[in-house]
């Protein structure tokens, strides 16, 4: 379904509207407060963008370096061209490790490739261990936010879900009670399951160190308790140096959860005998990313560190929620990333899912020029022949009218006589405007006519 249609359905869900307005409003305020504490925030943004660009513009060498350092530390690196290759690799590794189950750290990239279904297809059960991901999984639902996947659910809905799926009764809606319930359910799995699967927030080429940040401690359980750890990461997650984390970690925490630092930051380098997982596999996933890299402007999207600040400030996202985007990555970043990752074959209505208000760029910690990229992608959609029927010829006709004072003034005369201006007639049916808004009547005299009569 196109975004406008999916959004029209989502907008009718009044509970969703309330949940989202409340949740995004809270995170927005928290972020604004901790960003205001920082004197050199703009300089930090510049530095974070520079670090990501330095890796992206040198990606082939950075990735080969990462492969060498990870291998030297006892890890095993696998390359995956697309989702199918990545899934096949993880499925085989998990099957070989045995047990029929994996525990998962919250990860966008495994959502992107549909790993859980691929595992299920061969009889391996994936347990999501992040509280919100667990809520999504138990509800047979889809994540609707990058950081807060169950943002569309409120406490009462979660209580009802836990009672239905975890055999609880008379649960309170207090967050502490809900968390304790999830913890009891998850602890047993942490101790039992021998294979962990994670994504990566950063991977350091210099040292082969993988970094995962989280708030609940579940991630650390998954990356330390199992005997086998499999990490899937998009190739854009590599950063050159370990010291780069000094910039990236605090800017991520302040931008995403509105904290000075996130509660749990796990760093590991290969395998340490007798301590933690004894087998470590790193799956490097392309899945469209090198094509994104080929677009001079669009490649900025690969700087994204998945903080989701752009979602929380987006007036479109706040009203429609994440599901309307029908992509793994919703909100403003999703609107520029999803179509590009698909090679502009899918998600063609997403670049249009923005008023270009610019709020996303202002909060982006790595300064992705989202509005400019949206505009750029709109032209790529047009160039790919995917614009709405008749739009191209209409826009050309309008440009011809506006290309000379003569034809422009003739069109103004027509508008005054009660017929619609070409712009109104051509871009969409008039009802798209008048369903909710009145149109002003064309005044008897244009400005230029008045100027000519009184001032020229």
């Amino acid at each position: 379904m196109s975004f406008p249609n999916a959004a029209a359905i989502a907008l009718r869900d009044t509970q969703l509207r309330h949940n989202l307005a409340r949740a995004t409003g809270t995170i927005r305020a928290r972020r604004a407060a901790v960003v205001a504490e920082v004197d050199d925030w703009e300089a930090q943004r510049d530095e974070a963008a520079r670090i990501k660009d330095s890796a992206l513009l040198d990606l082939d060498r950075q990735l080969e370096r990462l492969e060498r350092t990870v291998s030297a530390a006892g890890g095993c690196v696998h390359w995956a061209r697309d989702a199918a290759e990545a899934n096949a690799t993880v499925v085989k590794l998990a099957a070989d490790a045995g047990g029929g189950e994996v525990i998962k750290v919250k990860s966008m990239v495994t959502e992107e490739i549909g790993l859980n279904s691929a595992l299920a297809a061969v009889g391996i059960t994936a347990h999501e261990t992040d509280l919100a991901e667990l809520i999504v999984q138990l509800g047979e639902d889809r994540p609707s936010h990058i950081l807060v996947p169950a943002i569309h659910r409120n406490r009462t809905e979660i209580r009802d879900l836990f009672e239905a799926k975890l055999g609880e009764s008379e649960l309170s809606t207090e967050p502490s009670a809900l968390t304790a319930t999830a913890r009891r359910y998850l602890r047993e799995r942490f101790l039992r399951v021998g294979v962990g699967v994670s994504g990566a927030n950063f991977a350091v080429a210099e040292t082969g160190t993988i970094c995962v940040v989280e708030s609940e401690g579940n991630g650390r359980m998954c990356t330390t308790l199992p005997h086998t750890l499999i990490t899937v990461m998009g190739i854009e997650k590599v950063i050159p140096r370990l010291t780069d984390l000094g910039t990236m970690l605090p800017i991520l925490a302040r931008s995403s959860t509105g904290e000075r630092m996130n509660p749990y930051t796990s760093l590991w380098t290969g395998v340490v005998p007798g301590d933690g997982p004894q087998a470590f596999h790193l799956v490097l996933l392309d899945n469209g990313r090198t094509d994104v890299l080929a677009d001079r402007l669009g490649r900025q999207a690969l700087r994204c560190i998945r903080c989701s600040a752009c979602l929380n400030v987006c007036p479109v996202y706040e009203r429609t929620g994440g599901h309307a985007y029908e992509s793994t990555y919703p909100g403003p970043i999703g609107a520029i990333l999803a179509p590009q990752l698909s090679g502009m074959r899918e998600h063609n209505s997403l670049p249009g899912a923005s008023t270009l208000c610019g709020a996303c760029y202002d909060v982006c910690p790595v300064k992705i020029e989202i509005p400019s990229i949206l505009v750029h992608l709109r032209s790529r959609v047009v160039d790919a022949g995917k614009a709405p029927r008749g739009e191209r010829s209409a826009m050309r006709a309008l440009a011809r009218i506006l290309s000379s004072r003569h034809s422009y003034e003739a069109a103004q005369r027509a508008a005054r006589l009660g017929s619609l201006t070409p712009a109104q007639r051509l871009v969409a049916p008039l009802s798209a405007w008048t369903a909710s808004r009145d149109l002003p009547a064309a005044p008897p005299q244009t400005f230029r006519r008045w100027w000519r009569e009184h001032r020229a």
Partner: protein
Amino acid sequence: VRVALFIACFNDTFFPDTGRATVEVLERAGCTVDFPEEQTCCGQLHINTGYPREAARLARIQLRALAGAEAIVTPSASCAATMREHYPGLVGESPPVHELCSFLVDVLGVEDVGARFPHSVAYHPTCHSLRTLRIGDAPLRLLGNVRDIELIELPDAETCCGFGGTFSVKNPDTSTAMLADKIRRIGETGAEVCTAVDNSCLMHIGGGISRLRAGVRTMHLAEILAARG
């Protein structure tokens, strides 16, 4: 100071009062105003809808029409933003264009244009004025010096109204949801007038208010500055 007025096709055709008010205010601030009549449309609609080639053609026509002007002033922040932000990439140059309020305050140093407007007013900072041109509080400084005006702060003022050019017709439901929240906030102020520096946003907001018979009117800021009460 001699300035060229870029009226914006939208104002020219639908909001001529804004154009007359702009001329009046500029002259009061000591400017001599020219109106180069070959100007048509800045190309914003074409750029933002994904037609950069057509937009480049329109951009070249505007540059030609406005050539030689030392300062270009427009009562449309989004058109000024288009010329500033997109023209360099489209046609390799950008004209010396200013949004009206920012020209008065930041270039001329004028914050009082001798207006009187005995009404309560809520100011909506439009996205392009706020986050592209970054004109800051220039409009509020000018409004603050209008005699007998009652300025009422608009809650969530910096949130987009939901217009977004073709967004308003390509995504009418989302656009309307955003508009509903904006109108609710305007209603909460109890103001008689909602003002801004872009008639496109005001046509959207005003169109919604009018449909709801909500009893508030929209008015371009230039018209308040031109008012003598």
